[in-house]
């Protein structure tokens, strides 16, 4: 990889390490960054060992993985639709996942079944949006985006309906899931591995994605096999979203705001933007989750509220300033 790509990635990697140290050290009992490092290397008291290795580190890693997955998924969708507004949330993938998860909760099921059901919901939403947008003609980005928005609105109605008819004692859990909450996360490793693999995969695909961003005809004229590439991106983005949503519920704005901000600063080379999204998205969610834990401690806020509260004004400001 050449130098101009490496430098911003190193800076972002450093930022995410600092964010993670901060996150692991912050909470009801604070642990200084030096001690966190010591614990990670096998030192420290028993209490610190439990606190860091069993309680905080998995949660921090889950937050990082979720944020990274969502940001990369958003960036991929934006290239696919050549529209900076595309994101898993807007396209109804998160809505499908939410309906799946709430159905399982409504049936009184918990744990793994909620996750599995959310995953199935996200994949179903994917198939629906692409199947319907394909229709009898061809995929056009605007048709895909419109289909996604309408399907998302449909999921929203179903979610409201389910909330309205569900018994009162189930409501808090459901609402927390809808707002996104990393404390639901189980092992962070599958998601982290997926994130890493996808970043490796998009490096060789990166230049083709750059060309695809100029439009499918132009891309085909420059030797890109457009249809297979589009399918690859869509399946990848759906898989990433489904994994993220399954881990932490539906968290909005990461997929929209992170790629957009990075494009404003780093330009639009996907070989840089996609790995940068993984790092910056992860960092953002780690920080947001840390905030969510401490703002009204000992109570916790759902992290989706924090990302929305931070994301909306940032996005509007950038948009306002850019023209």
């Amino acid at each position, binding site marked *: 990889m050449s130098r101009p790509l490496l430098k911003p990635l190193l800076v972002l990697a450093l930022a995410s390490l600092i964010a993670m140290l901060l996150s692991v050290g912050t909470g009801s009992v604070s642990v200084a960054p030096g001690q966190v490092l010591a614990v990670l290397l096998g030192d420290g008291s028993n209490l610190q060992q439990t606190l860091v290795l069993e309680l905080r580190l998995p949660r921090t890693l889950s937050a990082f993985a979720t944020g990274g997955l969502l940001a990369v998924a958003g960036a991929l969708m934006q290239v696919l639709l050549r529209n900076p507004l595309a994101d898993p949330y807007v396209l109804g993938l998160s809505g499908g996942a939410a309906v799946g998860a709430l159905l399982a909760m409504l049936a009184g099921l918990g744990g793994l079944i909620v996750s599995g059901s959310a995953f199935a919901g996200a994949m179903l939403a994917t198939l629906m949006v692409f199947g319907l947008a394909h229709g009898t003609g061809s995929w056009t980005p605007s048709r895909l985006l419109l289909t996604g928005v309408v399907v998302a609105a449909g999921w929203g109605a179903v979610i409201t309906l389910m909330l309205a008819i569900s018994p009162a004692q189930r409501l808090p859990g459901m609402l927390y899931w809808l707002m996104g909450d990393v404390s639901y996360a189980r092992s962070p490793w599958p998601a982290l591995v997926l994130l890493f693999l996808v970043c490796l995969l998009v490096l060789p695909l990166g230049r083709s994605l750059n*060309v695809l*961003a*100029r439009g499918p005809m*132009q891309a085909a004229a*420059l*030797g890109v096999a457009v249809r297979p590439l589009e399918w690859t991106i869509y399946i990848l983005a759906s898989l990433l979203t489904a994994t993220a949503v399954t881990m932490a519920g539906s968290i909005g704005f990461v997929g929209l705001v992170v790629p957009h901000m990075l*494009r404003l600063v780093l330009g639009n080379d996907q*070989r840089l933007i996609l790995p940068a999204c993984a790092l910056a998205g992860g960092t953002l969610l780690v920080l947001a989750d840390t905030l969510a834990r401490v703002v009204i401690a000992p109570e916790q806020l759902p992290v989706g509220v924090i990302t929305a509260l931070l994301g909306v004004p940032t996005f509007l400001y950038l948009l306002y300033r850019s023209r």
Partner: protein
Amino acid sequence: MNPLQAHELVIDIPGRSDGQPLNFTVEPGQVWGVLGPNGAGKTTLVHTLAGLLAPRHGTVRLGDQPLNGLRRRSISRQLGLVFQDRQDGFPATVLETALIGRHPWLSPWQMESGKDEHLARQALEKLDVGHLSHRLVNTLSGGERQRVAIATVMTQAPDTWLLDEPTNHLDLHHQVSVLELLTDQARDGRSVFMCLHDLNLAARWCDHLLLLYPNGDACWGPAERMLVPSALERLYGQKLITVEADGAPVFVPVKS
């Protein structure tokens, strides 16, 4: 190089009968012009020849290989296409835009090298947009963007150039310099096939012409045989006066 060949080709324009199947070969060194009124299918023909649209009947061949049996990557190493309109969803600089012309020549893991950048800069200089290389494409004028698009294909360095209205948006001087550049390419053993709106530019710079009628009829051949006033009048539905200037015919529309 592999010459581009249309064999019994009928382009697919919805709601139009087949008309005259096209049979021609664009040999190295030739400059072809396609003339026809709006909606005659010029763009469809160029896209079909590039393999971006499927023909209704017949085949397009590069050398002895049918286009649809070749990989897109190997087609794009031999065939470059300048589109009539461009969409840019995300902002990109002029240099980045020219550099995507190297895409078919680089393996997936390769980054653009200094040599690729050199080729891109050279092409931008040739089209008189070298001084704009760090500007964002969406801030350029129509004519500048058109020249950047031509520079992108120049960076791609194909044997066969397909161009859809390459002189669109260009001022008179740049129209001439682009056509000179294309005829230079042909003189170096490449071939050029382009749609043109301007009959007189075509008469001046093309050695072969293809007249495309709205009903699907077509005729083609060496330029001097095609530039028959009565045929051209029928093509455009417009009376013409022919005068001679600088050894070439010039067609002037009759005022009604």
